[in-house]
Every structure is written in C-alpha cells, then in structure tokens.
C-alpha cells in the first residue's frame, strides 16, 4: 500500500470574479522512502494541492480523496489532523523567516513542536532532542545555537532549522514546498544534501514542490508536471527528461538556457498561463501549444504512453512515441505552410 494516495483531488475557491478552480482532478501516490517531485509554474496548483491535503486551505471547496496509510485526510476533523500534521507528516515552506516565530528561540520552537505531540517528553529530553536535530542538519555548535533567535540565523541555517523541526518526530512523509527557492545556489546545494541524507537515514518519503527542473533532476524519483490545476504528465524522472510526451513538459525543458550546450536563442513558450477562473475550452495548454489541432478543443484525459503504465500524459498526440513524432512534424509543417513565421518574442 502506498503511504499517500491522492485520487481525483479538486480544490476551488469562491472569488468576487467567479469560481477559481485551483486544482482540477489531481491523482498521485507516494511510497515510503521515495521522492515525488511536483513541478509547475506559478498558479499551476502545486502548492494548493498539498496544503489542501494537510487541511491548510480554509474556505476552499474540496473534492476527492487523500488516503494517508489508508485514512482519508480530507474527511478528518481538526483534532485528528493535528495528530498527523507534524508528527506523521512534516512540512517545510519556501520562506524560512516567516515560518519561524521571530519572538521565540529556535530551540524553544522545536521543543514546543515535540512536546505538543508527546506530552510525556520532559523539557530536558526535548531540548536534548532539539540539539541532536540541529546537529543532524549541520548547524555548527548546536548546543549554543539552540538558544538563538531566528534572526541570528542566516537564511540557509533557518531553512535547516525548519528541516530539523519538520523531522523532529520522525515523520513518514515530508512535504517540502519550494524549500530552496529563496536560497543561494551554494546554500541550496547544502540544504538538498541534508534532505537527501536524512531520507537515506530514516527512509522518509518526500514530496518536493518546485519550479526548478534542476532541483527535480537532482532529487526526484517520480515527477508530476502540473499546469492549470491538472497533471499534464506523470512519469519517472528519466522519462520526464528524456522521453516526455506532453508538449508542455517539452516547452518547459526547451525554455531553459541550455546548460553546457550552446543555443543562440531560447525557445520560450508563447503567451501566458491561463486564468483559473475562465479556463480555455478543451486542453488548458491549447492556446500556447505549438501543436494544437481541432481535437484539442476537447479536454484530453491522462492516457498511458508507449505501453508504460507508469507514464501518463494528458495530450491528444498519439501515445505511441514514433507516431507522436510523425504527427508533431506534420503539425509543425502545417504552421510553416499556413503563416509566414511570426517574429514571436
């Protein structure tokens, strides 16, 4: 049985402008000790989906199922959820300064975290555990740093303290929402290394939410590519990078400045992501897709690609990779014939 099994999750919010559909039928599973990467641009619903699973989106209309060890998180009451949040599922957020309380010492916050879930732990025990945790994530002189305030920590140290706090009760699952986006590359490398080491040591499953395909390539086992509240493609890491099927995945990868190789011009995806209140008809990526054709006015379902049950993509291009390539070429030639190439910027 999978550790976390999310089926057909929908999340919507009422806004003055109409209903905003943030997540529109998302399914994924996370196994023990595995890292699932969720990648997508701003507004793709990647953060909202995990926050909803943890009961952190107030005022949202939620549908679907999220089974954590067989229990549905979406139907739990606050009390039941509190027992799981922190203890069974740890969370790390993007901004380490606003996730730590500025008035309380870092150590106190970790101790509080431990004792609120396990009253039988004495303060002294909890403090010893806090020091051990800080040492584990590589904070120097943890016995002294434990009584520092968050502002005395640098950005990287704060994020490591957040990881220490999230790991305090040996959770089975760690949800990391853009944990390194606010950090410099050198510090990012340190933090990712700490997370990988902890995963090896304790077998924690990780959901890594990021917009950075470099981070995904580094840490993820499986990858979900999200766009406009839906999974566009879901496969293991190598398939996503080398044998992707969906034009959106392709567009994301092509728009990166080639690392190592030289390309004169970047190949951006034309246009903007759609509004989640007034979604385009059919495939949400249709208005930006270079291969869009008549069939795309219907919304494509996630289908199995090239006979690999672990690889699904929501696109009307043929699931057979050879046929897909042929059709892709035809559609590109169609564009060349129809219009003189517009100097799109």
């Amino acid at each position, binding site marked *: 049985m999978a550790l976390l099994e999310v089926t057909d999750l929908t999340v919507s919010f009422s806004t003055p402008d109409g209903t905003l559909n943030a997540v529109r039928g998302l399914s994924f599973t996370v196994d023990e000790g595995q890292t699932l990467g969720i990648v997508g641009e701003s507004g793709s619903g990647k953060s909202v989906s995990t926050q909803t699973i943890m009961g952190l989106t107030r005022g949202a209309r939620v549908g679907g199922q999220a089974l954590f060890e067989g229990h549905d998180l979406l139907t739990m009451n606050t009390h039941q959820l509190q027992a799981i949040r922190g203890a069974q599922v740890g969370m790390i957020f993007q901004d380490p300064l606003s996730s730590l309380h500025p008035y309380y010492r870092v150590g106190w916050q970790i101790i509080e975290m431990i004792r609120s879930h396990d009253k039988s732990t004495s303060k002294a025990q909890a403090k010893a555990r806090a020091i051990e945790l800080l040492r584990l994530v590589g904070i120097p002189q943890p016995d002294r740093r434990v009584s520092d305030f968050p502002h005395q920590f640098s950005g990287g140290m704060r994020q490591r303290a957040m990881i220490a706090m999230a790991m305090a009760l040996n959770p089975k699952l760690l949800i990391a929402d853009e944990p390194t986006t606010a950090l410099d590359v050198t510090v990012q490398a340190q933090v990712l290394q700490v997370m990988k080491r902890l995963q090896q040591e304790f077998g924690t499953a990780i959901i890594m939410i990021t917009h950075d395909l470099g981070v995904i390539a580094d840490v993820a086992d499986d990858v979900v590519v999200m766009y406009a509240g839906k999974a566009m493609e879901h496969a293991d890491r190598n398939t996503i990078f080398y044998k992707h099927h969906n034009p959106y995945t392709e567009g994301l990868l092509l728009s990166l400045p080639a*690392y190592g190789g030289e390309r004169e011009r970047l190949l951006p995806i034309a246009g*903007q992501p759609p509004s989640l209140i007034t979604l385009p008809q059919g495939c949400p990526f249709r208005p930006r897709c270079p291969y869009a054709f008549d069939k795309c006015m219907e919304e494509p379902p996630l289908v199995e690609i090239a006979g690999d049950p672990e690889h699904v993509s929501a696109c009307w291009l043929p699931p057979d990779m050879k046929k897909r390539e042929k059709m892709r070429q035809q559609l590109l030639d169609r564009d060349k014939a129809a219009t003189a190439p517009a100097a799109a910027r």
Partner: protein
Amino acid sequence: MSINADASKSDGDVLLRVDNLVKHFPVQSTSLFSRNKDVVHAVDGVSLEVRRGETLGLVGETGCGKSTLARCIMRLHDITSGRVEFEGRDITRLSTGQMRPFRRDMQMIFQDPYGSLNPRRRVGSIIGDPFSIHGLADGKERKRRVQEVMELVGLNPEHFNRFPAEFSGGQRQRIGVARALALRPKLIVCDEPVSALDVSIQAQIINLLADLQDELGLTYIFIAHDLSVVRHVSDRVAVMYLGKVGELGEVEGVYQHARHPYTNALLSAVPVPDPATASDRHQIILVGDVPSPIAPPSGCRFHPRCPKARDTCVREEPDLVPRLGDPPTHVAACHFPVADGEDLADSKPEIGADKRIVEEGLVGNV
C-alpha cells in the same frame, strides 16, 4: 551578440570604466553612547570595464555587493571612494542636476516587476515619465513615442491606458524594459531582470533583451544569481564575493576554466536539469555561510570556506591577474588557482580550524 556590436568591440571602445570603487555603509550603533564606527564593506575596491555593445554578467551570492555596485555605477548611491567614468567622463562626484544628462544614456531594469511599477498610475504615463522628466516630448508626441516603445518590447500599444495590475508578471517586466528603453540609452543595468519570472516567461524576456541589443546596439550589465542565464546572455562575466571581484573574463573561459575555487564551487552548486549529469558529477559543497561584510576575513576573503586554503591565503590578499597561462582577458584573484581537470571535492584546506572561524559558527560538517 550582434554583428555590428562585434565590429565595434575593439578594446579601446570602453563605455564605462570603474576604478577601485569602494562603497561602505555605516552601521547604526546599538548603544547610544558607543562610538562604534563599524561599516559594511559592501563594495571594496572593484575595477572593471564595460565595452560598447557587450553584455557584462555579474554573479555572486546574496550580499556579495553586485547590486550595490550597479547602484553606485548608476549613482543611486554616493560613492565612498574610487572613480566611475562614462564615455571617458568622470561622473563620480557629479551633483543630481549634473547627472541628469547622463541618465538619458544609462538606465536600469529592476528585479521585481510588482514593486517597481506604481500601481496607481497608468502604463502609458509610467513609460512616458522619462520623456517628461527630460522635457523631450509631451501631449500627442509623447503618446506616439510611448506607443512606439511599447510596440518595440512586444506590448500591445492599445493597452496604453491600463494599470499595471492588469498585466501578468512577464508583461510587467516588459513595461520595465520599455521605460528603460524610452530614451534610447547606451547602457542598461539589468538587476536580476528575470529572477521573479517563471521559466517559460523568463525565456521570452531574455530573447527580448537580446533582440533589443542587436537592434539598438545596447550595452548591458546583467546581474543575476542564475549562472545558466548569465552564461547564455553574457560576453564577459565577473564573479563577486564579499565586495570584491574574484574572477573576471570571457564567459566561456570563466565557465570552462574556472580558476578561483569559489567560481568552481558556485558552478558546481547549480542544479543541472539533466538527471544523468546530476547523478554523475562531483559537487563541491561549501561549508558555512558568507562571512559578515562588517569584518571581512583577512587575506583572501574566501579563505574560511575555501577547500584549498593555506597560510598564504590568510596573510596575503591575492591580486586579480591572469593565472596558469590564461589569456590576459581572464583574471582571477587566487594564490592557488584551480588547474583544468583538478577535482576540488578531494581538496582539504591546510590551515587550522581555528583560523577558519572568522565568524562564530562558521565551520559546519555539512
């Protein structure tokens, strides 16, 4: 990048020269009576040249002084000491009024497309500001020229009367570009122009900047912390660490034959969007954080984190000169430069741990 830019890129054609530029910020003393005269050494003796038509990339971690340097060049900060020359004229000590004619030739694009546009003003009036400030055009003429520049950056000129909130992040950054371009400047300082944007939009803006450079013969100083973006856009690149330039040279020279251990560490820390490379490569993980710029380390400022540090590094500050037979255009400030093919991940510093602690708690075991 362009053909005509290449032709004009002779060595003598220096658009901007920065000579030993220093910018210190006084630190507010915590006690009322203390005569604490601490200063933040934000930029500490930087010399570089920007040639006409080229893009100079400026990279480094948070707090290395890259934005302060850019702001000093734009004279948005007063300069503590040193010299800035634009087209051969010294602009270091000019007053606000005296600077004004120069501002037509040097403009800036900011990182945050949300914070840098006044939400209560219409786009046409924001982009039209440079024309009214310099008294160049008003009324219909101003509108015509604003719409012209909007079209140039790929905005719909009919959106002249809209508010910034009606635009997406990428379009807002185009508004910032349009405003900078309005007076057809010679130099544009781009301070993290794409950092706040999604990758697909980021590529649109980078292409736009490249096209505009080709069309208008612009010169860019391009600040970014994303090293793959800098590699893509720059002709030359300067790597900064704690207020100093650690390495400077043609972009391929610096990326392929990085001499400074810091440049190597920075390059190896960049996540590569390619699983095969990601699992094969040997990452150099630096210990600790950047030391405080209030009391920068002695000698080479990188020595407390450097995997190759020796006693010389603690005592003597290295000069920024060509190393290991590099061409004179590629300079590095390091006593023990990294040879091609050397694996830094195996290096161990040869100085005592006590010397490595410049700031409390710097040495970690990660």
